[in-house]
């Protein structure tokens, strides 16, 4: 394979693996545990074996703390990392709106992507349909964790 061909294949891959995604994969944020979480939920993709466990600490109507652990592909883990940055410290209602917007974006809603900031980088995953569930795993898991926290 020539160098040029090599770069062309890599350019297509760059749509999926944007720099910010690889950065979160290599340097995950909020990876670990909270001292006294309000709720913990484990999410699992039975088909590919991706695992993400989300811990939340709710203070009144605010998502005061969030952490995650897990194992899986770069998309599942960086999506979890990016999610924690986006929702930490936000009002619970806003976190819920972000969950809705993110899942809408992954279903193909480009308008929803506009309010997502850096998270828009994950929209490239839509070109790889089998990987969409990797990207949404952490978000569904957060949704469940918030339900369990009773907010």
């Amino acid at each position, binding site marked *: *394979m020539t160098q040029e061909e090599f770069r062309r*294949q890599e350019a297509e*891959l760059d749509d999926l693996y944007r720099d910010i995604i690889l950065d979160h994969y290599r340097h995950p944020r909020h990876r670990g545990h909270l001292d006294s979480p309000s709720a913990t939920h484990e999410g699992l993709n039975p088909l590919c074996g991706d695992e993400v466990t989300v811990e939340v600490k709710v203070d009144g109507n605010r998502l005061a703390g969030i952490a995650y652990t897990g194992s899986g592909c770069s998309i599942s883990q960086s999506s979890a990392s990016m999610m924690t940055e986006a929702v930490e410290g936000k009002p619970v209602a806003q976190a819920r709106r972000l969950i809705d917007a993110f899942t809408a974006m992954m279903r193909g809603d480009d308008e929803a992507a506009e309010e997502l900031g850096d998270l828009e980088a994950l929209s490239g995953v839509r070109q790889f349909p089998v990987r969409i569930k*990797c990207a949404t795993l952490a978000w569904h898991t957060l949704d469940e964790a918030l339900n369990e926290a009773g907010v």
Partner: protein
Amino acid sequence: MTLDVAQIRRDFPILQRQVHGKPLVYLDNAATSQKPRQVIDALVRYYETTNANIHRAVHTLGEEATAEYEEAREKVRRFINAPTTESVIFTRNTTESINLVAYSWGRANIREGDEILLTQMEHHSNLIPWQLLAREKGATVRYVPVAADGTLELNGFENLFDARTKMMALPHVSNSLGTINPVERIAAEARRHGVMLLIDGAQGAPHLPVDVHAIGADFYAFSSHKMLGPTGVGVLYGRKELLEEMEPFLGGGEMIRKVTFEGATWNDLPWKFEAGTPNIADVIAFGAAIDYLEALGMENVRAHEAELTAYALDRMAAIPDITLYGPTDIDQRGGVVSFNFPDLHPHDIGTVLDQYGVAIRSGHHCTQPLWRCLGVSGSARASFYVYNTPGEVDALVDAVKAARSYFAER
């Protein structure tokens, strides 16, 4: 090369296609094989000239379709050297074949306190039916451990079975590790201890010469679609004496002799186990797949895959940080190469390789408990067949290296 691969490749139309602008390198044969023109033509010819239901009609089409369907059964019988076609039952797939045995033989013979012996390398299809049976009957399931080299820990066959062991089921070849298990030896031990033996041949029959009589298996199950044939056809070989004693699996048309409002009597073997209209067209096309494999010669198929696997293991082992699974002794190794990297997930490898036209499988390959034993969630897996070439192994290695460099810190 043992096979004329260039000639073989011309028979497979799909190998002409491109994926992401690159020639398709199809290395997911353990999942399903591609189909030669001869098999595709057999399907089309059947529907264009012969289509009819079988074992019913007195018209010409019905008679021809029945003859071709039963001719395919004879081809399968010869292919695995079964003593009689009464022992060859067509099912939907390997999974259904195993479920048939677990249901019809298992429910009549497994009792509370009995033990079913499996291995840690079981495909879920040879695991769940036995777990269901054990739960229903109050039986236990024990697993032969897998050693670090990917072979079964048989400990010289001492104490393989205990007094409670009624049934053993294991794969002929592991779909995740490529291990070829010593099934003849295990069958001899099972016979000596009066233990019933089922061999999951899903990765055996497509790749190795299989002689069920010489192996001495009580049951041997495999699928058409992994050996050049269509999807939707499986085979269960069973010893005739066992099949005769067993109750039917599914009830309906075809499997009966006489039906009244009070009850029914069963058809002869093998039709007792083939309720309803079977997958006639695909069974007939499966016959064409067997013709194709027999023309190549299964010894040659095996030799070709062994050469490719040895070459692949050699080249892959030279990639830094790679973990390769399964036996290194090529005599104990089928054409499956599972691998991992410490910092690269199998799905990311699979996506990058696809971008280079290389189709492999990533994940747990339906052997979740095995991977848990090995301390990972799954692997990337390349698997070979008759049309694969050393050049395609090179393409695999190049693409794996590209994946490594793509994910390396930049």
